[in-house]
């Protein structure tokens, strides 16, 4: 079985499900209000994507006009929050994870606290986040940062602890100082773990952003599908959900490319 024909089969399955879904609507088996047929979702999706106003050269460039559709604005809002929260979470988790992985004392000091905090889902911080940060982007970014923090932290700790002792001995033999060993040996040796943590972290961030947007802000994909529910626009809900799926896929692919580039020296690459 070649990879090409496997992929073709995968596409075929999607098309088959779309056809079945359409048929179920045509045959009147389900209420179109509850489950609109795919063509209705596609039409709505296009409306949601396309600019709402006709092009007016006075109000800005053609590119800005092309990007003025509601869907694109929502997607950019969500992506901004995901990236901001993910960067905050990662920047906090990475040095802490490196330190906890490298030093037994720091690990023993911080571990009990982290073990208590880790099982608390980021969603449980919603009430506090609103109390502390009010409404808008700050509480959303806070929640996303928490979501990204733990996967990056735990994997970084595991990565540092898994560094083969022979690399440390070889580096010491070459006369490397502690800081050189840390930056040139421990850090690169643990990148496979760190990147795995980042990949999980950005996935969590993407889940949390949708929930955060349902509560704290008034744009973004999460906000939009909740808003669409108020008006019983099931087609728009589904269009929004599929957009979330596609953006999530794109982010994961981007992470995977980054992974393959940074770990080109590593065995067992994912292709």
């Amino acid at each position, binding site marked *: 079985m070649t990879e090409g024909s496997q992929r073709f089969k995968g596409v075929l399955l999607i098309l088959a499900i779309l056809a079945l879904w359409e048929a179920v609507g045509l045959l009147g088996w389900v209420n179109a209000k509850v489950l609109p047929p795919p063509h209705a979702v596609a039409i709505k999706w296009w409306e949601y994507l396309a600019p709402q106003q006709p092009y007016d050269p006075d109000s800005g460039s053609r590119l800005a006009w092309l990007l003025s559709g509601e869907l694109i604005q929502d997607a950019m809002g969500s992506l901004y929050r995901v990236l901001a929260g993910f960067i905050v979470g990662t920047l906090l988790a990475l040095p802490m994870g490196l330190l906890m992985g490298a030093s037994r004392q720091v690990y023993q000091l911080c571990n009990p606290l982290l073990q208590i905090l880790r099982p608390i889902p980021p969603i449980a911080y919603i009430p506090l986040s609103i109390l502390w940060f009010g409404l808008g982007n700050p509480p959303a970014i806070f929640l996303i940062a928490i979501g990204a923090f733990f996967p990056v932290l735990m994997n970084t700790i595991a990565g540092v602890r898994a560094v083969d002792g022979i690399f440390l*001995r070889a580096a*010491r033999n070459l006369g490397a100082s502690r800081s050189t060993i840390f930056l040139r040996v421990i850090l690169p040796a643990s990148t496979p773990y760190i990147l795995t943590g980042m990949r999980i972290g950005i996935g969590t961030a993407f889940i949390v952003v949708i929930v955060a947007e349902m509560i704290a802000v008034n744009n973004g994909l999460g906000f939009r599908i909740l808003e669409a529910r108020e008006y019983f626009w099931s087609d728009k809900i589904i269009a929004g959900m599929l957009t979330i799926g596609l953006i999530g896929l794109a982010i994961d692919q981007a992470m995977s490319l980054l992974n393959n580039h940074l770990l080109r020296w590593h065995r067992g690459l994912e292709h």
Partner: protein
Amino acid sequence: MDSSIVISGVNKTFPTPHGVVVALQDINLEIRTGEFVCLLGPSGCGKSTLLNAVAGFSLPSQGLIKVNGQAVTQPGPDRGMVFQEYALFPWMTVAQNVGFGLEIKKLPKADIRSRVDALLKLLKLSEFAERFPRDLSGGMRQRVAIARILALDSPILLMDEPFGALDALTRRSLQDELLRIWSELGKTVLFVTHSIEESIFLADRIVVMTYRPGTIKQDIRVTLPRPRDSASPEFNGLKRELSELVSSEQARHEDAERRALTTD
């Protein structure tokens, strides 16, 4: 000629759940500058422990090791170590691995490059400079590890069964190469092996060690002219002599292992 490594009265003990293991007992050894010395014995005889003590990775429980008159307290680039597992940094290219020790010394970039180029040429690695270690065979990796140590220009090479994981042909060609480098550069070499043939092929002196406690059983000077012919009667006579010395230690090692397994 002065001694470059002096080991006097060294003991090393390890606490284990089954009691204290005496890995080294009363080791006294002097190695002259430029000498090629093999430590020979079965696994568990403490030869690697002794090498690690000279390297400064794990200091003796008692006794003193001096290298060029200085007591060994920590690892250092004056005693370059080549490991059986190569220990190349997989995230660095061949050239970066070889140049890492020079980078640590903060040499100018251009100097590092020319030095690395020369070493890669010496070890026939030039065309692999930009490859990562995972692309190389075991023999090539060990060449890179040797180049990395030679870059330090350390007067002493410590080698921990460096060719143990290689196939017979690769092993032989690396042995030849090591001898060539050794005679060209005049290094002092302390080489751990459990291969009798390897030790006769390489060494000026073969130090046979006993199994637990690790002591020096015999210190044999090899005077055969190089290159040594493993088919010659002298080579084989020495091989027979060493086989007898080593096999009684190997028997004790196997005995101890069997006992450890049956008492569990």
